[in-house]
């Protein structure tokens, strides 16, 4: 409860900065920095053997990693402890935009191309294992993603997260991983263990977007523990419209894949 009162006022910033310090931010940022290094290494290695890896994929990955890192470490992450709007902006980056960009970078395809054939086979076996089939199921991924958000903002988890470093780490990794799983379960850029029809994914994606929108308006009217009404209003609207902007891209890619998959076959054969 004492901590809660600090969330409300700007002078709380020092207290939180000191309690959390540098290490948790480093722990959160390190995997992303490593991910960028490994990706670049893989691109370099695969380009020597096969035709060159598309540059836009590397650019997507780099932007995704940078945006995720900005959300978990540095000035924005510091402000997020005391300012709900900054927190929400960080979450849009970490849970939606970074996963989308990183999914568009097709890391699994790159990895399969880079590994030697026996290793790639083994990786494919892992990809087809039941935990991955389960977690990349669009319904499971939607619950992990949107359900996790409801849990965070409608229970005391949000204020507890600011008191415990461990919870802080878990919540932030969860937000990113759930966002990534959700993205790859809806749009198929990388190989995925089990593919679902377009209509199924479209309905589930619309339902998940609705869950996100409803939560944004709920936050607007019912601030999470320790957040001022005014901040919750701005944060809720940012979540609503920011989410929309990123969702448009998801919907567009899903529809584009449908458009390509249903192209008239006979016409194609004659046309080419």
């Amino acid at each position, binding site marked *: 409860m004492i901590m809660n009162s600090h969330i409300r006022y700007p002078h709380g910033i020092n207290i939180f900065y000191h309690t959390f310090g540098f290490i948790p931010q480093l722990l959160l940022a390190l995997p992303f920095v490593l991910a960028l290094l490994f990706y670049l290494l893989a691109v370099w290695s695969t380009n020597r053997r096969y035709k060159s890896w598309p540059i836009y994929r590397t650019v997507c990955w780099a932007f995704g990693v940078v945006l995720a890192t900005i959300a978990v470490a540095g000035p924005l992450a510091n402000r997020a402890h005391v300012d709900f709007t900054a927190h929400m902006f960080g979450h849009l980056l970490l849970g939606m935009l970074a996963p989308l960009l990183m999914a568009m970078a097709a890391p699994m395809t790159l990895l399969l191309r880079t590994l030697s054939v026996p290793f790639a086979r083994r990786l494919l076996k892992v990809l087809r294992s039941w935990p991955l089939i389960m977690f990349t199921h669009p319904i499971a991924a939607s619950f992990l993603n949107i359900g996790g958000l409801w849990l965070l903002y409608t229970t005391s988890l949000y204020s507890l997260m600011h008191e415990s470093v461990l919870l802080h780490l878990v919540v932030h990794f969860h937000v990113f991983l759930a966002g990534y799983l959700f993205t790859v379960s809806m749009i198929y850029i990388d190989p995925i263990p089990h593919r679902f029809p377009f209509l199924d994914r*479209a309905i589930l*994606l*619309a*339902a998940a*977007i*609705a*869950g*996100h*929108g*409803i939560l944004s*308006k*709920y936050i*607007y*009217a019912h601030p999470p523990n320790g957040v001022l009404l005014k901040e919750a209003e701005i944060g*809720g*609207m940012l979540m*609503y419209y920011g989410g*929309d902007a990123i*969702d*448009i891209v998801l*919907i*567009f890619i899903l*529809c*584009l894949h*449908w*458009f390509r998959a*249903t*192209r*008239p076959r*006979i*016409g194609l054969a*004659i*046309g080419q």
Partner: protein
Amino acid sequence: MDTKNGYPKNNSNNMNSSKYKSRNLVSGFLFGIGLAAFIDETIFHQLLRWHHFYDKSTTDIGLISDGLFHAFSWFATIGGLFIFADLRRRNALWLRRWWGGVLVGAGGFQLYDGTIQHKLMRIHQIRYVENVIVYDLIWNILAIFMIIIGFSLVGSRRNGQQPGKAIAHDHE
């Protein structure tokens, strides 16, 4: 539209007949819902600021309905246009039917928004003024007009006629 891509003439005609007839309607209907929701958001929420983001009197079911329709309308706009593009590349586009679908979709959404969402679920009012009933009447009567015109466009060539371009192939 022409036959520049060399799509087989007879095949596209056969396919047009029933499957793409309803698909024209679906595409227009989806795009109509999306268009109405988009106009609602840009003009009435953002530009005029008549509509409010959240109204204290909103019921829980209103919040859910609003969220579902908001999400669905994004999908409907983009999906409807992709289906439009698909019809076009198959030479199966039937514009009159499509526009009929647009008007029915837009009118249907506006009527639902104006009666159930605004009045029953009280998500927000059209404008926060004394005589809001005038706004409500204009809003809903316009919606009904759109639905009527839409249905008359859809029904006017109901008996198995095909898009003009596709018919043209028969005579070539």
